[in-house]
């Protein structure tokens, strides 16, 4: 009888752990958060770009300073520990915008500071940025080559 009781307790504990390990957030809520936060960050970007356009830049020219400002904001928020908390809630809503690109570079660089400035900070800076930059460049090269061969203009 006692063994059965222990068995039952074990099962209850197992069920408890399964429940605890199961991702708690439903898909709909994840999507809503991603939409809201991703939209909000894009909106901030639009305001920053508008500011630079007000200084007389074309939307095209304003792209670079806008990217720099957003990357700066993302890096700062990462340094203060805010961005990682945002990513936990908003998922891709925080990771997909360029501020998330900054976060993906800054966060591991900070974390591996203890492994040194060269192999820690210098190398970990590109943990996520490396794949993104590498495959982005490869894809853009192929697309550019295809357009050159086919004679398609911008």
């Amino acid at each position: 009888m006692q063994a059965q009781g222990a068995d039952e307790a074990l099962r209850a504990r197992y069920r408890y752990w399964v429940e605890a390990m199961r991702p708690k957030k439903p898909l709909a809520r994840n999507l809503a958060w991603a939409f809201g936060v991703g939209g909000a960050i894009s909106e901030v970007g639009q305001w920053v770009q508008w500011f630079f356009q007000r200084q007389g830049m074309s939307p095209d020219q304003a792209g670079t300073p806008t990217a720099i400002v957003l990357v700066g904001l993302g890096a700062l928020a990462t340094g203060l520990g805010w961005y990682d908390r945002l990513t936990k809630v908003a998922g891709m809503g925080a990771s997909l915008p360029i501020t998330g690109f900054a976060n993906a570079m800054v966060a591991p660089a900070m974390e591996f500071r203890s492994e040194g400035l060269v192999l820690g900070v210098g190398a970990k800076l590109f943990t996520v940025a490396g794949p993104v930059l590498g495959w982005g460049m490869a894809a853009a090269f192929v697309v550019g080559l295809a357009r050159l061969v086919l004679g398609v203009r911008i």
Partner: protein
Amino acid sequence: MTFVWAFVVGGLLCALAQLLLDTSNLTPAHVLVLFVVAGALAGGTGWYHALVKVAGAGASVPLPGFGYTLVKGIGEAVQEKGAWGLFTGGLEAAGGGIKAAVLFGLAAALVFRPRA
């Protein structure tokens, strides 16, 4: 109107990425790479350019905008200097964001301490 579309399009792109992440076995890094490549392909067809015109930062701030910027930069460089532009273009167009991320990343790693 751009201000409305910026929110909607930026939000939708992120929601789409979240949907892919939640319904597949891909890691976040895989999803990010996929979106950059998708942005480059959409940039090559001219679709992304049309999206940027309507949604502004809603299309250029999310990662596909990065792929689009690379393709656009390559296109401009190719027009300017021919086939060599395939190698030189792209990075100068996207260079501001990349270099900012590298510099700010180094600075943040020196200034801030990670909190557990």
